[in-house]
């Protein structure tokens, strides 16, 4: 029983980080219809950058974190301006593969700038862990959950009530009509990519803080986070925030109980992909996604 409680706590916390990465995906999908498959690499690069700021440069967190955020905003602007802008109105195949190419590029860049494969990352959220009954809740886990919920609330409000947010949703629906209404589409794309990169940076910092290390397996973490997007529905913030903990629980409980019994390794990493396949067969548009009806 105490084991189960521990699994639930760890699973929920891991799931909230997945939710954050999923939110980063949904922002771009909702406003420009581009599927960003380079999320893992963006998360990886931001956590390495945060390591440089906090660890190598030794800055205080209140100086270093704004630096990381500014860097993320710049990165988002750069990606949109250089990579995505020339491909506006191209077929979806090009838009997906260009993010794959971008991911490859970032991966190589990270390899050049930060050649070490793994470093310690224990700069934020210091202090003893909390105890819930017999279960242990690490401080970074709690903070990850809180920050994810706050960012979710901010995004919900922004997309529902602000003029720019509504314009973003409209852009995803019909770019030409929005442009005809005089809404600057390119500005919207630019802004959505900045949001994505900031969210990826925040999740990069959090995801590195929980185990206390930065390493290159974050790329596959980014891929596993797509299970959250698929389960929750591509265009739904609510879906992302609910599906994240579900995936986290499935991962931790599945690997926690199956691992010792079967002796299989890597269950935790493969569970999200199995969930993806199951969702594809049963309900491909996810729990909260909008089912699109197509016409010729």
């Amino acid at each position, binding site marked *: 029983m105490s084991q189960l409680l521990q699994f639930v706590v760890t699973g929920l916390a891991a799931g909230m980080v997945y939710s954050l990465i999923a939110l980063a995906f949904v922002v771009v999908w909702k406003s420009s219809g581009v*599927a960003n*498959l380079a999320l893992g690499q963006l998360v990886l690069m931001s956590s390495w950058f945060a390591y440089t700021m906090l660890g190598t440069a030794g800055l205080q967190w209140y100086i270093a974190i704004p630096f990381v955020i500014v860097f993320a905003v710049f990165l988002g602007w750069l990606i949109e301006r250089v*990579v995505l802008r*020339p*491909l506006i109105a*191209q077929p*979806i*195949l*090009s838009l*997906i*593969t*260009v993010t*794959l*190419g*971008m*991911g*490859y*590029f*970032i*991966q*190589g*860049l*990270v*390899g*050049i*700038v*930060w*050649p070490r494969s793994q470093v310690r990352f224990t700069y934020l959220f210091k202090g003893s862990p909390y105890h819930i009954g017999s279960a242990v809740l690490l401080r970074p886990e709690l903070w990850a959950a809180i920050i994810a919920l706050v960012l979710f609330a901010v995004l919900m409000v922004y997309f529902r009530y602000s003029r720019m947010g509504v314009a973003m949703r409209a852009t995803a629906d019909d770019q030409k009509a929005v442009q005809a209404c005089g809404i600057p589409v390119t500005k919207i794309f630019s802004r959505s990519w900045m949001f994505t990169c900031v969210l990826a940076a925040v999740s990069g910092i959090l995801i590195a803080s929980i185990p206390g290390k930065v390493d290159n397996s974050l790329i*596959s973490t980014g*891929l596993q986070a*797509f*299970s959250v*997007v*698929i389960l929750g529905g*591509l265009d739904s913030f609510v879906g992302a925030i609910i599906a994240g903990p579900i995936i986290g629980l499935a991962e931790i409980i599945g690997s926690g109980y199956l691992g010792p019994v079967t002796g*299989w*390794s*890597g269950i935790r*990493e*493969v569970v999200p*992909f*199995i969930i*993806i*396949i199951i969702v*594809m*067969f049963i309900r*491909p548009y996810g729990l909260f996604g909008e089912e699109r009806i*197509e*016409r*010729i």
Partner: protein
Amino acid sequence: MDLPAGTRNYNYSEDMSIFRTGTQKFLLAALFVFLLTAPLWFGNYWLTEANLIGIIIISVTGLNLLTGYCGQLSIGHAGFMAVGAYTSAILTGQFHVPFLIAMVSGGLLAGAVGMIFGIPSLRVKGFYLAIATIAAQFIIIWIIQNWTSVTGGYSGLTVKPASIFGFDFVTPTSKFYLILAITIIALFAARNIARTRVGRAFVAIRDNDLAAEVMGVNLFRYKLMAFFIGCFYAGIAGSLLAHTNLTVAYDYFPFTDSVLYIGMIIIGGLGTTIGPIFGVLFIELLNVLVTKLSPALQTALPWLPSGFTSGIAPMLFGLAIILFLVFEPRGMAHRWGLIKSSYRLWPFSY
């Protein structure tokens, strides 16, 4: 087909022929002579490289039928190659099945696995399908890692050399001829699949699947067929890879390769027969160049960061994919077509 001035088709066989004019036939013969005598002047290094290129051309040709012609994006092609490789390795190693039968069985099983993961393609497309095939890649590799009794788990398997009617393909030269022959058959088959009823149905599905369905193309059947054919090619390529390296392990088939295969068909040109050849040659030769050049650069320019050698290759691949998508989305095949027509039309511009 564009023909030079003065050349006419007088019967159906002329109309259907792939190589029509004397120049084409001459160049084809020259290419054959070059390829058949290649082991004479390629060193061992280049011969091994050529073998790898041939294998990847087979796999990418399959991916091109699936993604380039039928429009179903698959980012798990290396996983399907792994299925073929392990099937063929296990059949020849443990059950003493002849190599050719084992290779075809590897292809068939890879095709069947591909079809299973292709079933969602009936209801979803684009990004969803990309994610489903990524999931396929990771699930296949995970099964290989953990099904130790059959696949050898993390340590992999040793594979017998390919052998046909008692002749063992052990030397790089003999492997080169084997791979060359199979690559030519695969390319010829792909060229012909693309212009049959099936290939035309694929193109119709790619261009607009709803319209294709309304016109009477059975979407379920043809999409699954595309997955089967594409993954069959991958299985054949995987089997050849296993019998060339004489070992097979899960890390021969990384996810990054699946992405790179997509990059290759983008760079070469989607939906053309010659595209995969160009794409594979471009990426693999770039890879050779980088592996040869970057250590030298590293020593010559000591201020370069220490991760330069390992990071520069993925960076250049990513850059190539992005640049081609932005500046030449129809790939090198399109550029090649322009060069050919300007040669044919010279001295006029059109």
